[in-house]
């Protein structure tokens, strides 16, 4: 495409001559004989270069130049000046003319000026293109960024996991609907208003912060199961993951992911409950045998008493009455065991001294055990003081195990052997107390050990409910503890129980 020129001059003769010469040089040439017409053509044709005389009636060349420079279409302007018009010429440069040439216009001067203008034009065009590209690129990148941020926003919003992110001073800046659901606070109450510590317990924050140092290496916390308190004060079970975000070694914020475990916990509980009910159901068959024996005992007791009354035999009356009493106790054991095992019971932490409980249990059995020449003694760790634990559970557990241990000694019954049952307490690290109940009685072989935690399995014949160890284990597990057993047939058995405790909260005296 040839370069389009516009010549503006009131002197038509010089214009047409110049036009002829320029056309022969390959330019497309437009002409106007005054400023106004020149601008009209400019607007219509959009020439690349304008050559205008400076002195014209009406609109002069400077004005034409100014008007053209205000237009959106870019063109180079060459000003043609008369002799001694140097001031005007300099003004024209100020207003953005690319060059000025003197009259009369000489072909070689004009060609140089045109070439210069053409160069400027090319540079300007390139600059324009570049700017346009840049603008386009910025727009594309901006769009992408916006899409990405939208994507992230959607991701966070629709996440099943609660996400709570904070800035470097732990003010919450991201708080998604799942977090809203778990914690109960609406987003508008939390965003930029609450700090992490307002949402998470001190304990959790401590764990969060304790790991902070490590995080600089790992930058990640492992998830752990814990509870968070929601707006209504309820404890919600969650799987918690906390991450500190660093940039160039400086903390820039933190993010916590919370997975609501309420439903999972409920299902777990349901499964546990149904398993327990199934065990109870299964055992009804096994229980029948125990119940039959108890009923037979009652019949026996009442028969003896009848005979005693009839014959005025106090000995018979006494043994009949004892038989009835024994079976009442047996019935009550069985029913209580069944209740304990099948019922869901909350662990009740109360202030107590585990050593006292152990001593009490030993004391309770001492007399009956000594009738069989069995010594019952407690070895207590003096480091254990008053703590918060479920006293009733511990009592029941120790009663069950000590009574088992004594039975194991009675059942062994090797003449001349001296039998002992010991209860040891031991304070372990991490708020755990270990109880050991050991006997040197009959012991258990592998077969018995495999079956001892199953329902209605009893080695005690008429004496056991077949539920004792099952109940014992349930109480221990409910208390968050563990039970282990070491036994050898003919040597004896040791039960080891580990139970967590909590410190007593010292109340301030006022």
């Amino acid at each position, binding site marked *: 495409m040839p370069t389009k020129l516009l010549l503006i001059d009131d002197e038509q003769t010089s214009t047409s001559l110049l036009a002829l010469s320029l056309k022969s040089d390959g330019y497309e040439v437009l002409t106007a004989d005054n400023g106004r017409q020149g601008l009209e053509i400019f607007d219509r044709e959009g020439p690349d270069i304008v050559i205008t005389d400076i002195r014209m009636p009406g609109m002069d060349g400077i004005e034409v130049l100014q008007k053209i420079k205000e237009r959106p279409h870019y063109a180079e302007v060459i000003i043609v000046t008369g002799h001694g018009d140097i001031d005007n010429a300099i003004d024209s440069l100020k207003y953005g003319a690319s060059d000025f040439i003197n009259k009369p216009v000489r072909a070689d001067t004009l060609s140089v000026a045109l070439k210069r203008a053409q160069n400027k034009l090319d540079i300007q065009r390139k600059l324009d293109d570049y700017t346009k590209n840049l603008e386009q690129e910025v727009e594309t990148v901006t769009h992408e960024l916006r899409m990405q941020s939208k994507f992230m926003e959607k991701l966070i919003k629709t996440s099943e996991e609660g996400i709570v992110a904070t800035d470097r001073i732990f003010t919450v800046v991201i708080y998604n609907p799942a977090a809203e659901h778990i914690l109960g606070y609406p987003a508008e109450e939390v965003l930029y208003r609450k700090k992490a510590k307002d949402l998470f317990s001190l304990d959790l924050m401590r764990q969060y912060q304790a790991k902070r140092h490590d995080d600089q290496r790992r930058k990640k916390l492992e998830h752990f199961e814990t509870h968070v308190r929601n707006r209504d004060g309820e404890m919600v079970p969650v799987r918690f993951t906390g991450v500190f975000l660093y940039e160039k070694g400086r903390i820039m914020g933190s993010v916590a992911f919370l997975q609501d475990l309420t439903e999972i916990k409920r299902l777990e509980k349901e499964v546990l409950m149904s398993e327990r009910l199934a065990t109870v159901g299964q055992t009804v068959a096994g229980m029948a045998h*125990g119940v039959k024996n108890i009923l*037979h005992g009652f019949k026996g007791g009442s028969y003896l008493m009848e005979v005693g009354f009839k014959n005025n035999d106090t000995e018979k009356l006494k043994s009949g009455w004892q038989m009835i009493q024994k079976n009442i106790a047996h019935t009550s054991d069985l029913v209580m065991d069944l209740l304990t095992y099948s019922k869901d019971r909350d662990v009740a932490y109360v202030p107590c001294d585990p050593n006292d409980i152990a001593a009490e249990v030993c004391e309770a059995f001492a007399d009956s055990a000594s009738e069989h020449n069995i010594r019952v003694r407690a070895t207590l760790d003096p480091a254990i003081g008053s703590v918060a634990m479920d006293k009733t559970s511990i009592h029941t557990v120790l009663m069950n195990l000590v009574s088992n241990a004594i039975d194991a000694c009675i059942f062994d019954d090797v003449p001349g052997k001296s039998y002992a049952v010991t209860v040891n307490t031991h304070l372990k690290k991490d708020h755990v107390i270990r109880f050991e109940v050991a006997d040197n009685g009959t012991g258990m072989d592998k077969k018995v050990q495999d079956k001892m935690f199953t329902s209605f399995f009893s080695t005690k014949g008429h004496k056991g409910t077949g539920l004792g160890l099952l109940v014992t284990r349930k109480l221990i597990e409910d208390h968050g503890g563990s039970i282990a057993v070491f036994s050898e047939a003919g040597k004896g058995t040791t039960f080891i129980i580990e139970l967590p405790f909590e410190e007593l909260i010292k109340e301030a005296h006022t």
Partner: protein
Amino acid sequence: MGKKVLVVDDDPDVRLFSQAVLEENGFTPVMAKNGEEGEEMIRKDPPELIILDVLMPRESGIRLYRNIKTNKKFKNIPIVILSGIAEKSFLRSQKVLTEFGGDPVPDPEAYLEKPVDGEELADTIKKILG
């Protein structure tokens, strides 16, 4: 002296009950607290009747029952089973033991499932011993 009846049961209360029933009805009771002891007493001085429990530590009633019923000398001693185990279960156990290469044994003269009244026990024994 009434006819001698052996009671084999690991539960002292059950023995006491049976003993009282037997004494009240003019029999002479003797006691064994497990299968081993019972067998020994039978061999030493056979009783007129045996009241036998099934589930006992140290030689169960199932074994003792077979030993007596397959012994030429003792197989005619009537046995009354007194147990919390259902009669069906006891008979099945004997059938299984026979299948595993034992001699067939006759059913017990009477089978009483606990709980049993004193009168019922007495009537059963009287009926067998005439």
